[in-house]
């Protein structure tokens, strides 16, 4: 087996050095009653060639571009990934290395992550970003836990327009630890209704998502103004960071903590994982921040270099008093997103964001012309909600047969929106793709 280099001679020589007669003897410390009763009942080892056949058969059954036109967003976005990026990410010095605990031989990862931190802080308009968390959902949970630590309070308010699956994760993390979670309703314009928070006391933080699950841009400035008035923290979450290539970033509107999903930036959708938890905050909160941090320093010869720093916040030192239990995070995905942001550049990011927006607006106007209702008036980015007539399920299914996935039906997430779909269009859909879908919907 090509990953197991030992020959029979090697094994014999080594057993002799150790002073035992067989490989089985090496396990004499394992009591009989702890042993398996049977051998491993697994399929026989597949050759590389058999493995290719088995796994590509599975992959071929999947509905992906170019055969399928998938107009889905809702936390996972189809964007083009340049060939140069895939090539660079394949360099095994990045992918097969460990966490940079020995900085002298990890300067590649450390500088790449330092640059990533800088990119994220700039994108979100915040002072400092960490080296990544697992994904946008756990990042939001960590943000709320951080707010609780900073404020010394255990009550939080979260918008019902935060991604439903993210809210599910937040409940999972926070409820056993005794948190009170208030859910904020939404208004007719598709934005969070924060009016119920006037005069509220004892809140650790208010969390909204922008663009929110309906694709609408929230009034973050209004949220942070209210938050300051009631002495609490503003947390802004996001699913689609590309939106900040077009819209005002959360930092410029008063966010204290900003976190979300970075998958759009050069990371394959890959059926939802691995993702990239982007996380940033104001500098006064650094010591409460979860996750790793890379800092700039110098070596004993005065040469510039990078190290992991402020590690006393982390589990390997602080143990049960750590800011989080996180160890392995999503480092390679962070490097991928930095490569993507580097390749796009500031100009490219603005252009690509604008293109996403314009395609989405084109799609919207064509749908309106075809007589469909766009219920929420607020500005969106690259996804929006459309209202269809009752019985749309049949149309949806007909479109699936035509290899078109017409968005995400919202009924299972919002009872009151049972005839509505969340439709997304990015730079990967051509005008013809959009026209074809509209034409089919008209029929």
């Amino acid at each position, binding site marked *: 087996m090509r990953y197991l280099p030992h020959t029979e001679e090697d094994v014999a020589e080594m057993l002799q050095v150790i002073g035992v007669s067989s490989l089985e003897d090496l396990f004499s410390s394992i009591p009989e009653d702890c042993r398996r009763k049977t051998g491993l009942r697994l399929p026989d080892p597949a050759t590389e060639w058999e493995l290719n056949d088995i796994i590509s058969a599975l992959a071929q059954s999947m509905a992906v571009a170019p055969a399928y036109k998938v107009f889905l967003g809702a936390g996972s976005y189809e964007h083009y990934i340049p060939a140069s990026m895939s090539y660079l990410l394949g360099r095994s010095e990045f992918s097969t290395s460990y966490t940079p605990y020995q900085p002298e031989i990890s300067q590649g990862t450390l500088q790449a992550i330092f640059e990533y931190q800088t990119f994220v802080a700039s994108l979100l308009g915040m002072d400092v970003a960490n080296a990544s968390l697992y994904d946008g959902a756990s990042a939001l949970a960590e943000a709320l836990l951080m707010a609780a630590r900073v404020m010394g309070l255990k009550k939080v308010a979260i918008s019902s327009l935060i991604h439903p699956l993210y809210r599910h994760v937040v409940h999972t993390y926070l409820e056993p630890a005794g948190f009170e979670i208030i859910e904020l309703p939404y208004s007719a314009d598709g934005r969070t209704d924060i009016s119920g928070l006037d005069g509220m006391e004892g809140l650790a933080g208010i969390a909204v998502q922008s663009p929110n699950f309906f694709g609408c841009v929230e009034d973050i400035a209004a949220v942070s103004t209210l938050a300051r008035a009631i002495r609490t923290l503003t947390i802004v979450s996001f699913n689609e960071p590309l939106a900040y290539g077009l819209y005002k970033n959360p930092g410029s509107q008063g966010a204290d903590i900003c976190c979300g999903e970075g998958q759009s930036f050069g990371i394959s959708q890959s059926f939802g994982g691995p993702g990239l938890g982007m996380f940033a905050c104001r500098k006064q909160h650094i010591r409460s921040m979860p996750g790793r941090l890379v800092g700039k320093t110098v070596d004993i010869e005065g040469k510039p270099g990078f190290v992991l720093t402020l*590690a*006393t916040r982390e589990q390997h030192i602080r143990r049960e008093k750590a800011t989080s239990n996180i160890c392995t995070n999503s480092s390679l995905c962070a490097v991928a997103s930095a490569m993507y942001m580097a390749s796009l550049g500031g100009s490219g990011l603005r252009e690509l964001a604008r293109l996403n927006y314009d395609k989405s607006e084109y799609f919207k106007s064509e749908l309106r012309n075809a007589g469909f209702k766009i219920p929420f008036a607020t500005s969106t980015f690259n996804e929006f909600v459309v209202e269809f007539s009752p019985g749309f399920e049949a149309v949806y299914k007909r479109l699936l047969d035509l290899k078109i996935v017409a968005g995400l039906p919202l009924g299972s997430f919002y009872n009151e929106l049972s005839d509505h779909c969340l439709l997304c269009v990015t730079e990967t859909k051509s005008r013809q793709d959009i026209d074809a879908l509209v034409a089919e919907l008209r029929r």
Partner: protein
Amino acid sequence: MKEISELLIPQDIRYTKDHEWAKLDGDKVRIGVTDYAQDRLGDIVFVELPQLGKKFKKGDGCGTLESVKAVGELYMPVGGEVVGVNKKLEDSPDLVNTSPYTDGWIADINPSDRSEMDGLMTHDAYIEMLKGL
């Protein structure tokens, strides 16, 4: 790492088993950590000072000292209210390393029971304790 003979252990102050020192100064008790503590922790990078105005009991955790690789808890040698903290440590935490008994002092306490000072170790008792470690 210093040998016991290399450590600075002033005669005129008192010591705790957790390596804090306490010095009576008028009606206040000034506290800090010993040369042994700073030597073992290494370069101090951050001091979480006790909260001004807060009241603690003797033995309560009231702050922390962070080095690059470790965190040390600061425990109250005597109970009382925190009436002063050494703000210089915010920008220069290294003062704890260079001058643990003078410029690196941490807090001033208004003691609730001055007799608690008598229960603390003298210079000789502290050295005996260090020898046993």
